[in-house]
C-alpha cells in the first residue's frame, strides 16, 4: 500500500493512501468531533461537524469523507473551523425539540455534549420548527422525529447492516424527514424490531418502549408472585450504566439489585438456554437421522431474526428449529412445572425478563406462547430499562454486595451463558451434541472457529458415529440474508446454522447500553463484552448444558425426555409467515 505523509495541526503523520483525514488525525492523536460518521456503518458527510481547514483548499473539508493527499496540511481547531461547527450545532438546535431535561438521552446525548463543548446558544436562530407526531405504533420502540438531526445513522444500520430498509430519508430540504414508505408507521413496514437504530442514534429520536412502570406495578401487587429471569448478555452490559468499564461482568451485583427491587425469585435464563440446547440438540440429531428432514436447521433464539425470516423468507421457516427461545421456555417452565411444583396459581404469577433486546417485546406477544394458558412471559425489559429502574429506586450497583441466583432452578451452565455472544449457541450445542453421540465429553470444549466477529464463521465436527457435522454461525441480518439466499438456491452446504440478528449477537443487542460514537469509532465494544462472556466460561465449574443438574430434574420429574410430547407442547412452537408487511 502506498504511504502518504501529511501534517495534522503541525504533527507529521504517515498513513496508507486512501485513508480518511478523520482517521489520519486519530493516528496523530487528534480527535475530530462527529455526529453522523460511524465506523463501518456510515460516512455520508451529512452533519458537517467534522469539517477541517486544509491549506490551499477554498472551503472547509469534510474529514469523514475526504481522503489524505501527499504533503497535505490539515488544521482541525482553527477559529474558522470552530465557528463553522458552532453555527452547524446552533442550526441543528433551532429545529430540535429541546425538552432536554427529561429526555431519555439527557447526559448521554452526542448533540448535547457538543453543544456544551462549543458554548452554543440553543435559541440563537428562531424560526419555523417542524412538528411531527410520535411513531409509537409498535410494542418495542418509539420514533420521535422532533428530536431527529437527520444524521442518517439509523438508516445506514437498517439498510446496510440489517438489509431491512424499513426507514429512509424522505422529502427534501427543510421538510426532509426519516420515515417509511407513504408515511406509514413502523408497524406496517418490514421492521424486525432489532433496535439497532436506537443504539446508533446520537440523540433521543429513537428509544425503546418503557415497560418499567408495569414491572413495579406487578412487584407492588401483593397478590402477584413475581419472578425475574436475566439473559446472559445483560450481566456484561448493565455495569456500563453505573460507571463500570465496557466488558465488566456484574452478575453478582445484578442479582442483588434485582432482589432489592423486590422480585419474589431471581432466576437465570441461562437455565433455559441449557434446556434449549437439550431440545435443539436432540432435534438436530433426529433431523440428521431422517433423510427427508429439512436441513440446514437454523436456530430460533433471536426474535429479530425470527421476524426477519418470517417476513423476508416465509417459504423457508421450515428450516427453523421448532424450539421456543430461552426466554419463552423460561416463562413456560415457570408457569407449568414450577407453578405446579410449588403450588402457585399461574394466573397470579408474573414472569419478567431482562433482555439485551427490543425484539423480545414482540416475542412475548406471539400467539401460542401460552403453555400454561397464560402468556409465557408477561413483561420484558431491556438492559437500559433495568438500569433506569434501579436508578429510580436509588439502587446503585457499585455499592451492592454480590449474590447468587435462587436455587435450585435458577442456575444455568456457562454453556448457556455463551448464548449472549455470536457463536455461543453453536458452541454450547456442539459440546452437548458430541456428548450425546459419542457417549463422552470432548477433550477440548472450546470451539475457537465459531468465536470472534467475522460475519460468517464455519466449522466442522466429526462425531464418533462417522457423521461430520458442518455448521455456520452468522450475525447481523445482512449476513443472514446471504446464507438464506444460498439455501433458497439449494447451495447451502451446512447442517446447522446459528443466526443472531444483531452484529456480535446479544451482547450488542438493541436493548444494551448505548455507547457514544466517540468510543464506537475507536474500540470494538462487541469484542470487549464477548471477552467477559468467554472469561466466565473459562473459569466456570459447570461448562456443559447436559451436566446442569436441573436438566435431569426437569426431564425426570416433568418432560420425560428431550423432544417428548410434553416437551413439544410446552417448549416448542410453530413459526409462520408474516406477510401483511410493506417491504
Amino acid at each position, binding site marked *: 500500500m502506498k504511504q502518504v505523509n501529511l501534517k495534522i495541526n503541525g504533527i507529521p503523520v504517515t498513513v496508507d493512501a486512501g485513508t480518511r483525514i478523520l482517521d489520519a488525525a486519530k493516528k496523530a492523536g487528534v480527535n475530530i468531533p462527529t455526529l453522523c460518521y460511524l465506523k463501518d456503518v456510515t460516512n455520508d458527510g451529512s452533519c458537517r461537524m467534522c469539517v477541517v481547514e486544509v491549506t490551499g483548499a477554498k472551503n472547509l473539508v469534510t474529514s469523514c469523507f475526504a481522503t489524505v493527499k501527499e504533503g497535505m496540511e490539515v488544521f482541525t481547531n482553527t477559529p474558522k473551523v470552530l465557528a463553522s461547527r458552532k453555527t452547524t450545532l446552533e442550526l441543528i438546535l433551532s429545529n430540535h425539540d429541546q425538552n432536554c431535561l427529561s429526555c431519555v438521552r439527557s447526559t448521554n446525548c452526542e448533540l448535547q455534549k457538543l453543544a456544551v463543548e462549543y458554548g452554543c446558544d440553543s435559541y440563537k436562530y428562531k424560526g419555523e420548527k417542524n412538528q411531527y407526531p410520535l411513531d409509537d405504533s409498535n410494542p418495542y420502540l418509539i420514533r420521535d422525529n422532533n428530536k431527529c438531526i437527520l444524521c442518517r445513522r439509523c438508516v445506514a444500520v437498517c*439498510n446496510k447492516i440489517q438489509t431491512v*430498509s*424499513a*426507514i*429512509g*430519508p*424522505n*422529502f*427534501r430540504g427543510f421538510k426532509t424527514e426519516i420515515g*417509511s*414508505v*407513504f408515511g406509514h408507521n413502523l408497524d406496517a*413496514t418490514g421492521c424486525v424490531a432489532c433496535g439497532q437504530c436506537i443504539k446508533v442514534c446520537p440523540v433521543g429520536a429513537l428509544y425503546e418502549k418503557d415497560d418499567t412502570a408495569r414491572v413495579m406495578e406487578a412487584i407492588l401487587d401483593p397478590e402477584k408472585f413475581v419472578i425475574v429471569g436475566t439473559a446472559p448478555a445483560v450481566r456484561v452490559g448493565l455495569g456500563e450504566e453505573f460507571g463500570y468499564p465496557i466488558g465488566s461482568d456484574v452478575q453478582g451485583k445484578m442479582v442483588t439489585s434485582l432482589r432489592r427491587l423486590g422480585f419474589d425469585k431471581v432466576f437465570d435464563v441461562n437455565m433455559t438456554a441449557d434446556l434449549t440446547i437439550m431440545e435443539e440438540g436432540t432435534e438436530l440429531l433426529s433431523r440428521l437421522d431422517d433423510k427427508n428432514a429439512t436441513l440446514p436447521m437454523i436456530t430460533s433464539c433471536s426474535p429479530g431474526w425470527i421476524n426477519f425470516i418470517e417476513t423476508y423468507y416465509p417459504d423457508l421457516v421450515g428450516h427453523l428449529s421448532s424450539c421456543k427461545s430461552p426466554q419463552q421456555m423460561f416463562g413456560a417452565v415457570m408457569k407449568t412445572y414450577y407453578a405446579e411444583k410449588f403450588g402457585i396459581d399461574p394466573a397470579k404469577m408474573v414472569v419478567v425478563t431482562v433482555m439485551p433486546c427490543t425484539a423480545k417485546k414482540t416475542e412475548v406477544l406471539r400467539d401460542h406462547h401460552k403453555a400454561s394458558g397464560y402468556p409465557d412471559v408477561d413483561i420484558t425489559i431491556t438492559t437500559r430499562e433495568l438500569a433506569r429502574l434501579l436508578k429510580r429506586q436509588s439502587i446503585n450497583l457499585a455499592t451492592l454486595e454480590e449474590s447468587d441466583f435462587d436455587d435450585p432452578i435458577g442456575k444455568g451452565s456457562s454453556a448457556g451463558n455463551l448464548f449472549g455472544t455470536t457463536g455461543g449457541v453453536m458452541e454450547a450445542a456442539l459440546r452437548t451434541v458430541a456428548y450425546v453421540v459419542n457417549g463422552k465429553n470432548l477433550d477440548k470444549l472450546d470451539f475457537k472457529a465459531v468465536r470472534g466477529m467475522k460475519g460468517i464463521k464455519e466449522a466442522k465436527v466429526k462425531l464418533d458415529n462417522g457423521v461430520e457435522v458442518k455448521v455456520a454461525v452468522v450475525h447481523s441480518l445482512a449476513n443472514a440474508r446471504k446464507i438464506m439466499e444460498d439455501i433458497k438456491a439449494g447451495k447451502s452446504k451446512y447442517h446447522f446454522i446459528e443466526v443472531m440478528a444483531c452484529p456480535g449477537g446479544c451482547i450488542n443487542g438493541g436493548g444494551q447500553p448505548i455507547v457514544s460514537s466517540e468510543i464506537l469509532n475507536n474500540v470494538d465494544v462487541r469484542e470487549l463484552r464477548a471477552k467477559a462472556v468467554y472469561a466466565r466460561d473459562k473459569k466456570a465449574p459447570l461448562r456443559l448444558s447436559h451436566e446442569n443438574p436441573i436438566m435431569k430434574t426437569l426431564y425426570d420429574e416433568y418432560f420425560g425426555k428431550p423432544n417428548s410430547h410434553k416437551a413439544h407442547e410446552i417448549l416448542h412452537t410453530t413459526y409462520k409467515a408474516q406477510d401483511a408487511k*410493506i*417491504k
Partner: protein
Amino acid sequence: MSNQFKDTPEQKKQLDEVFEGLKNVPGSLMKAMQKAQDIYGYLPIEIMQRIAEACKVPVEEVYGIATFYAQFNLEPMGKYKIGICLGTACYVKGSGVLLDRVKERLHIEPGRTTEDMMFTLEATRCIGCCGLAPVLTVNGDVYGNLVPEDLDRIFAQYNA
C-alpha cells in the same frame, strides 16, 4: 395505500417492457421511475413496489427519491395538468391573480386534483418564456400575455 389504483393489462405490459429494457443498465432506477410515471401518470405504492423489485432496491429508497424530486407524483393526476408560472417575470405581471382565480374556479389548492379527475393544478417555477409573461400551460400547451378575463376562453376548450 392508494385505493383507487387499478392498472390495465396494456399498462402492465408496457411496464414489463420498461423493466426488460433496463434490465442490464446500471443505475437505472430514476429512468424506471420516470417511465413508470409516463405510463401511469403517477407512482402509486403498488408500482413503487414493482420498481423496487425490478431494480433490486428497497421500496423505501424508491419512495425517498419520489418525494425528493418535484417531477414525481404520488397521487393520480387529472386529465389536464394546469401549470401557472410563479417565476419573477410572470409574478410581477400578475400570475398570482391568475392562480387565485383558477383556485376559486376549480376549488383546489396547487398540487391537488379536482374530484372529477379532470384538472390538476400546479404552481410552477419559471418555465423559460418570460417574454410571454404571465403564462399558463395546459398539458404543455402555452398560453401567454394573459389577463384573468382570458381564463373563461381557455377553460372552455377543456369543457369546463
